[in-house]
């Protein structure tokens, strides 16, 4: 494949996500597979680049939750075709994340957006859903030996529960990285609770997910 054709394909994949065009994403993925573009490249230099652009548009408030969810649909349309090839080639997941909305809280859109980014970036995500009992985070982390535990809370009242989970995880497995996020969480809260990282608020969840991913790349 010529470098020009490769660039063209990668741009098509990225654009399909930005323009939330599922058909175009599928078409681009098929073309990539047929023409022998590495699935890894197609995902990370195509789809994920598109998702990062969505993140930027979200950050400057041009895109909003509906657009993001549609972008995600397009991304998954491409990912569903490309990911099995990645696995077949013996590509290992980049890492494992345990994720969930803490007990008492049922607001999970922010968490779903972050999850989508981890998915895209090649992580294995163990999504515990919402209103997750505190113990379950600890048990799931130990069971899967995940690198990261990501906790989300939308309400100040439930955010307070994060402190206990962090303490419990630290006691059982001091190596696990803990990230917290959600509308009421701030850097102070993250520091006070002893987390390793934080996503500033729900509206910035996507951007922060990207930041988390790039910091993990360096790990």
């Amino acid at each position, binding site marked *: 494949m010529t470098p020009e054709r490769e660039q063209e394909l990668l741009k098509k994949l990225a654009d399909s996500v930005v323009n939330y065009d599922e058909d175009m994403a599928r078409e681009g993925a098929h073309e990539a597979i047929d023409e022998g573009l590495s699935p890894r490249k197609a995902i990370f230099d195509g789809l994920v680049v598109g998702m990062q652009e969505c993140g930027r548009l979200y950050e400057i408030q041009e895109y*909003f939750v509906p657009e993001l969810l549609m972008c995600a649909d397009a991304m998954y349309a491409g990912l569903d075709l490309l990911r099995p090839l990645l696995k077949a080639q013996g590509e290992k997941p980049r890492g494992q994340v345990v994720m969930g909305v803490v007990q008492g809280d049922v607001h999970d859109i922010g968490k779903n957006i972050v999850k989508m980014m981890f998915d895209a970036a090649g992580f294995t995500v163990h999504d515990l859903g919402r209103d997750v009992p505190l113990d379950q985070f600890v048990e799931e982390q130990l069971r899967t030996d995940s690198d990261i535990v990501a906790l989300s809370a939308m309400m100040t009242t439930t955010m307070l529960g994060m402190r206990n989970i962090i303490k419990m995880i630290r006691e059982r497995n001091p190596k696990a990285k803990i990230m917290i996020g959600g509308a009421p969480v701030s850097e102070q809260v993250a520091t006070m609770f002893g987390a390793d990282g934080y996503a500033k608020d729900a509206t910035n969840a996507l951007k922060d997910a990207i930041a988390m991913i790039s910091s993990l790349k360096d790990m």
Partner: protein
Amino acid sequence: MPTVIFQPSGRRGLVDEGTNLLDAARQLGVDIESVCGGVKVCGKCKIKIETGFFEKFGIDSRLSNLSAFLPDETDYLNEEEIADNYRLSCCAEVLGDLLVFVPEESRGAKQVVLETGKERVFNLNPAVRKYYIEMQAATLEDHRSDAERIKDALNAKYGLPRELNFDYPILRDLPTIVREAHWKVTVTVWNRQEIILVEPGLVQRSLGLAVDVGTTTVAAYLCDLHTGQVLVVDSMMNPQVRYGEDVLSRITYAMMNDDGLEKMHAAIIDGINTLARRMTEKLDLTPELILEVTLVFNTVMQHIALGIEPSHIGRSPFTAGTKEAQNIKARDLGIKVWKAANVHTLPVEAGFVGPDNVGVLIAEEPYKEPEKMRMVIDIGTNGEIDIGNAKRLLCTSCATGPALEGAQIKFGMRAAPGAIEKVRVDPETLEASYKIIGRDEWYPELKKADVKGICGSGIIDVVAELFKSGIIQKSGRFNMKLDSPRVRKGEDGRPEYVLAWADETSIGKDIAFTQGDVRAVQLAKSALYVGSRYLMEKLGAQNLDSVTLAGAFGSYIDKESAMLIGMFPDCDLDNVLAVGNAAGDGDKLALLDVGKREEAARIAREVEFVETAIEPDFQERFAAAMAFPHSTDKFPHIEHILAKVGKK
């Protein structure tokens, strides 16, 4: 201990070193806006440090008398403000003497409340009733006790049950009162159960107080229980606003501070006492003449006002400590009215759907509508929706957030003088005209507008107008290709529409409605829309026959604007009605008619609560409902307006 002085109120006092300025303000009784309750995420609590030696006050105020600038603060303060010694009061800790200026926009403003609901018909049948009796004097032959004598007379003359019980404090003066009155007394009986007052001679006047404790606003109605008339109406900002503006930040305050619940409980009780004193004073009377109090509130305000631990109501599964209606002695709560008076609280429906929604229901009575599909929305920080009729009535609660009340909006404020309350945007010129609270003329006719911000009804108007004129698209995104100085990129590079230029304002800067503000309104209106659609589906209803908009700003709201942005499903606009504070009306009805209390108990049990946020397709629907008015649902009744949208 350092001295801190707040201007313009001039309040001063000593505070512990390390106290943040927001807490210092609370301690000294200064109201600073704090939407988030001091967790550094709202940026509303900006203050300015005045530096120098102030001889008049005897203090040397220096910037170095505050803790270091935090990164969080740069998110909310621009360079100019930072250079001008602005800080966020929740971030800055006191290390030495300080003179602090609270700018107008950060001050807790005086609220304008809708106090006039619609006329409602009711039976005058209060819980508290007066009975005049004349008794035979005690003799050696007839040595019944004074109490027995009263009970016998009440039974003989009015058929009241013999098992009446005297509230203990009444017994203490009883022997003196009956004798001084020559055995002719007026006895006040509560609910045909309890004697709460014995007065000499014939007395008719009987006062009751209905209080609607809102998260933001407390509205009170002093009523004559003998005539059913409302004598005085008054309101105040909920004094707990100092501890956080929404219910969750108040719960958090209670969870984070050992004395948090106690402080907030004391604040609201003090507020109610102030109202009772102020309102009776207007009639040259005293609060001791108030013989019954009724309260409505949302479930969180209920818990705090009654001093019940509120932590568990703030998290899933959102269980209340108690749901039943209560009758509590006013003295047990510290409410200073007649010492034997009772406080009646309406019941809770479920979770966040509290006594205030029961108040709305007994005022609006959708359960008496035989056929038609009625919808009643009570708009507040938490929106409550009821849909149905006599056959079946469903309710749900939606986390709308405080955007529709002016919080989380860049120049948002509560409904107070100086707030923009109505907006029109010319679709040709894209020029704005607006009306502010407290003035009759509209800008631009109004020359010196002194605008301070924009309140809930103005927020709904501006979004609808921006959409109608094509400045924002159906998706909520600004159209930046328009040629108007009002449509621009703000300091942060994000799109905004300038509603009022700096010289029209009293805050010295352009008041703009930003892309982020549009997004906050989209989240709120989408929550309401999705909630109502779920209820309609569960009822099998295709259409709504009528929509009632209640809420502290319910009757200022422009119903066409509300429908244009898609706050509720399509309905004939002629059948959309704004009724004002229906919760307060329900509270008054419960004060004046015990029948309404029975109705409240019944309806609180019968209305079916639906938890909508956990529906599997909630996220999808929530996203679809964010467009104006909706991405797919049709609005035939406003089709003629929608057809013209964005077409110059």
